[in-house]
């Protein structure tokens, strides 16, 4: 009998020994939000969303400790109330004070983009992207060693990294992962158009519906589907000459990344959602208003060898013909794609 007891006593001990390696109660998984009619999001196997990771990412996104001089956070150039743009063509609030080469893009519906971030796709995913603004001397210019020390000095961060990640470390990798998780939750699908599309609200008016039809006919080959972007790279004719190799080819578009001459002057299609928040427009913010954008498509398109064929809708010539009436209808329709609830969502706001 005694022997049996000893064996029985042994049992829990060896099970306990095993249990140690099971992570007892990890972070709480959160499914990727997928609005009605949206496609399947891009695969995200390496960095699943968790409550703790998302919340940590939000705090980091708004924390000025992430810049060398503790003067800038990600939100300094990506304001939530402007759909995470900054309202200027080329920001010069970075550490060097020099104007950036590109316009700060809106940040939403990025969970669907598997075709590269930045206007030229120079970053494969959000986990890698964060290192660019963090380290660039024209942006946050953060010494990454220092950042880790700074965050380790904050007990709240120590606890939050422990809760969010299995290794519990405050590391550059986990900083990038948390930021990426927060940014994948930035889903915008609450505009009047969306409510109309989901039949939650009465129809759009006649002019708006005319605009919708025009956009579907003439713009949707690139500004495709419910995301209003195909996330692909096109030359939409805003420039004709891409020979300027300065700043490591920043003016050459997608070519900078692929070195393929067929990609000269191509930039990633921007979404048509939230345009009322995201002026000025295009990768360098050259157009201040939607009227200017439509004037460009109508009669400003410049011919070049890489110009997208969809940019030649004027009987094979450069341009997408639009009369004034059509332009007004398109502008009215684009306004229905404004998601005010997104811009005011407390889940996305500064902690």
């Amino acid at each position, binding site marked *: 009998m005694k022997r*049996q007891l000893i064996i029985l006593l042994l049992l829990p001990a060896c099970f306990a020994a095993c249990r140690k390696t099971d992570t007892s109660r990890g972070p709480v998984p959160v499914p990727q939000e997928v609005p009605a009619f949206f496609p399947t999001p891009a695969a995200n196997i390496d960095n699943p969303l968790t409550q703790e990771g998302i919340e940590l990412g939000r705090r980091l996104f708004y924390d000025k400790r992430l810049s060398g001089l503790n003067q800038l956070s990600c939100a300094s150039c990506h304001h939530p109330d402007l759909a995470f743009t900054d309202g200027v063509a080329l920001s010069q609030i970075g550490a060097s004070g020099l104007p950036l080469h590109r316009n700060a893009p809106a940040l939403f519906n990025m969970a669907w983009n598997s075709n590269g971030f930045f206007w030229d796709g120079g970053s494969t995913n959000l986990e*890698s992207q964060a290192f660019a603004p963090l380290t660039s001397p024209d942006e946050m210019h953060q010494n990454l060693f220092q950042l880790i020390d700074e965050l380790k000095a904050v007990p709240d961060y120590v606890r939050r990294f422990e809760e969010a990640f299995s290794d519990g470390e405050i590391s550059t990798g986990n900083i*990038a992962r948390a930021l990426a998780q927060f940014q994948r939750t930035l889903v915008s699908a609450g505009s009047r158009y969306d409510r109309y599309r989901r039949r939650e609200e009465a129809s759009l008016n006649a002019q708006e519906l005319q605009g919708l039809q025009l956009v579907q006919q003439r713009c949707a080959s690139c500004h495709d589907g419910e995301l209003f972007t195909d996330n692909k790279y096109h030359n939409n004719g805003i420039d004709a000459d891409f020979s300027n190799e300065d700043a*490591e080819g920043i003016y050459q578009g997608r070519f900078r990344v692929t070195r393929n001459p067929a990609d000269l002057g191509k930039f990633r299609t921007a979404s048509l959602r939230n345009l009322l928040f995201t002026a000025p427009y295009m990768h360098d913010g050259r157009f201040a208003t939607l009227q200017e954008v439509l004037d460009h498509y109508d009669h400003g398109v410049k011919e070049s060898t890489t110009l997208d064929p969809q940019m030649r809708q004027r009987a094979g010539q450069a341009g997408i013909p639009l009369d004034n009436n059509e332009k007004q209808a398109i502008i009215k329709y684009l306004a229905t794609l404004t998601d005010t609830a997104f811009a005011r969502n407390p889940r996305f706001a500064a902690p």
Partner: protein
Amino acid sequence: MKKYFILAAIIAVAFTSCKKETIVTEHDGEATVQFDAKVNNNDFVLNQNITIGARTYNFKNLRYWVSNVALVQANGTEVSVPNSYFLLEETNAVTVQDGAYTYPASKRENVVVKNIPQADYKAIKFSIGVDARHNDNLSLQAGELSQLSGMTNVSWMWHTSYIFSTLQGTVSDGVSTKNFKAETGLNTNYKTVTLNFPEAVKINSAKSTNLIFGLDIAKVLQNIDLITNPNVGAAQASIMTTLADNYAGAFSVQLVK
């Protein structure tokens, strides 16, 4: 009696389910893998004039990633070294992030590989650079991968990824002298090298094994004209590919013991 038997069985199961964490193989061996940089048959040294062909070089640094190392057993079984991302280097101090901090001067040519299952080994396989999965996702950080060692930098940040290799210094043809910087990167330039040993070597706990491989910088620079093209990087795509191919062909077996 039967009861005891069942209990014993449960215990056995319980212990085997633990076993995963506690492999103690008595006969595992250890090997020191050395990557010895050379110029032809001489040692590679920094800050000294070295002649290769008609050019005189003065090297400031040599740094490259060796990844996904595997040892190949005589029967063909490949034993991969877990988390094998190693930064090999011979370098003066490196200014990182435009001067945000300095990476200290360092010489590192040895990698110690532990827990090698005892067997006869006939070859080694490794790659130069960082595989696509880790190159595309800087947050994964396996092995020695890090953003802090200056092997990702702002000029590469247009395509946020690792620099696979960098070789820097000055080069002179007697007429002009140029500062050069020859780097490789991008997934298409990830190259795998297999080196067969002259004869199979037994690795086990009885002795520590030494595997010494040479990297000949003269071969690395073959057909690369650094006077005409002192910067080799992503913007010089075809030269960069030649350079990456050169690295893959510049390793040789020196000693297996």
